[in-house]
């Protein structure tokens, strides 16, 4: 099933949004690379849920994000966004930067959030466990370091981006820089508030993640009261792409078993 593409206006931001499926609403927050095309992962989720995948303000085609200066602003924006859906409580799923945004949103207010699922989220820092420097990686290593299975990287690298696609990637990179350059991919004050996430939570981490090492999974699990933690074998940072079925299955079973 291909999703419908909608432009949804909240405050001053008009965000592009993909939506498909039926059931309880599930909001998927993408990572720093931007909103990928609809793939097997979201497709699997849409068999059971009304999947809503917004492109964050400032990313891709979602218009000017100038009023969003940091992840805290983005979290406040998503509280407005959740209000605007008039959909009751949603299942919030976020990967990488999107996981960080999901966590920052949930610590502020969980009243419209039924559950939180974080896939290798940014947002915390463990001293002595350095993360990869994706801002210094070259174009090829930047792709390779996000996958365990290099066949996925090969496939992506074989395709020359169109002018539009290259522009979109650059737009995303600019916005990601604004949000994550310094402190690098974390907020010093997030961890002490994670106890405020009082809804069922899942933390998933690729065991071969070269951007955010899997050691981070435990800290997230220890900091969110009702979190269960699972690590995914043979998966890198973009596990929802290279292990789409496995990751979707784990997520669906968590959501079914709440």
């Amino acid at each position, binding site marked *: 099933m291909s999703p419908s593409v909608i432009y949804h206006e909240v405050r001053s931001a008009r965000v592009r949004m993909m939506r498909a499926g039926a059931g309880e609403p599930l909001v998927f927050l993408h990572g720093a690379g931007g909103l990928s095309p609809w793939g097997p992962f979201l497709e699997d989720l849409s068999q059971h849920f009304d999947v809503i995948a917004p492109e964050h303000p400032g990313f891709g085609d979602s218009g000017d994000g100038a009023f969003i200066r940091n992840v805290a602003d983005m979290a406040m924006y998503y509280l407005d966004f959740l209000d605007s859906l008039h959909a009751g409580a949603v299942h919030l799923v976020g990967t990488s930067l999107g996981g960080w945004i999901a966590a920052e949103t949930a610590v502020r207010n969980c009243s419209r959030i039924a559950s939180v699922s974080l896939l290798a989220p940014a947002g915390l820092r463990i001293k002595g466990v350095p993360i990869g420097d994706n*801002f*210094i*990686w*070259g*174009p090829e290593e930047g792709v390779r370091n996000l996958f365990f299975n290099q066949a996925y990287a090969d496939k992506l690298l074989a395709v020359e981006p169109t*002018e539009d696609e*290259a*522009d979109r990637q*650059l*737009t995303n*990179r*600019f916005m*990601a*820089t*604004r949000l994550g*350059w*310094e*402190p*690098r991919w974390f907020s010093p004050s997030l961890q002490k508030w994670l106890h405020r996430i009082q809804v069922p939570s899942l933390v998933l981490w690729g065991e071969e993640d070269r951007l955010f090492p899997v050691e981070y999974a435990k800290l997230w699990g220890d900091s969110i009261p009702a979190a269960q933690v699972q690590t995914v074998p043979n998966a890198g940072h973009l596990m929802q792409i290279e292990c789409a079925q496995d990751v979707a299955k784990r997520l669906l079973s968590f959501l079914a078993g709440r």
Partner: protein
Amino acid sequence: MQFTCFHLMPYRPLDMEERAKHRSAWVVLPNTLYDPERGAEQYESYLAQLTSAEGLGFDVIGVNEHHQTAYGMMPAPNLIASALIQRTKKIRIAILGRALPLTNNPIFIAEELAMLDTLSRGRIIAGFVRGIGTEYHATGINPAHSHERYQEAHDLIVAAWTKPGPFEFEGEHYNFRYVNLWPRPYQRPRPPIWIPSQGSSETVRWAAAPERKYPFLVTFSAFDLVKRYLTSYADQARQYGYEPLGSQLGWAVPIYVADTDEQAKQEAGGAIESLFNQFLPNPWEMLLPPGYMSLSSMKATMKARRSLGSRPRTQTAEDLISSGTALIGSPKTVVEKIKRMQDETGFDNLVSMLQFGTLSDELTNRNMQMFASEVMPHLR
């Protein structure tokens, strides 16, 4: 014409085979390749060279700021300026420049420059820059805020120098309840400000504005580009309704003179290639972190780059000479090229870099002497 003797202070003993194993001579090049004894020798040589510029008749000596790199050993150019003040009497000293967005307290820059200006009894020229892109990797400062921080820090420093204190400064990035410099600058109302630039139109518009009229130095670019940028500054000034002075138009360029063109190329060719191919190159992720340029400029740059192919080209001495990126030749050849730029743009502010890359002390000293005796008099 006004002559500046400018230095980058490169770490010449760099092991170039080891250098080639790393993506850059900046930020990621292990400092185990640096030897403190050799480093001390470099400083000694370079300070002697800059000091000798006074006796040779230069008007200004210039130093600059870069961080965590073998390209230049001056993360704190004010310290070098301070040493130069003690070794010279009359020559002006330009700090080209301090990288404003990299500091969290621009008042420190205002204070240090005011101290240097006082210590030298008014011989300081301040240069304000944003640093190159690698600086944002080295310091952690978010490049997305580079432009905003530069503007704000500039406004704060100029106000600190010229406005009676104490006063309050209220910005987005910088906020201070008390701004009140002790000492104030020696020069009144403040030290001159020069703007080294790669020629972006935003910088041209800003520097040329009537309330600033900051001299604008085009750095390390091919002859035609330098000409284009200087012309755009002059045009901008005319649009603002005034005729720019030649001293507002500056060209920063590596120069080497010897008896013949051939000899000059032979003596300086390896050194100029080391500057452009080993000390200077950076992958674009390091050179242009997102936000360092505006998104629209960056899109245009990346588009041009894609059409040229992504591999950076190695530049030979011939390339650098024929493009006019470096002036290497007999005094006659070099004088002609400078005169041509002068005829075509009206520029009158020459920032000469007479040591570059691995160029030895012996060749540097000879170059400086010959430039002073056989080039400068023809352009005065």
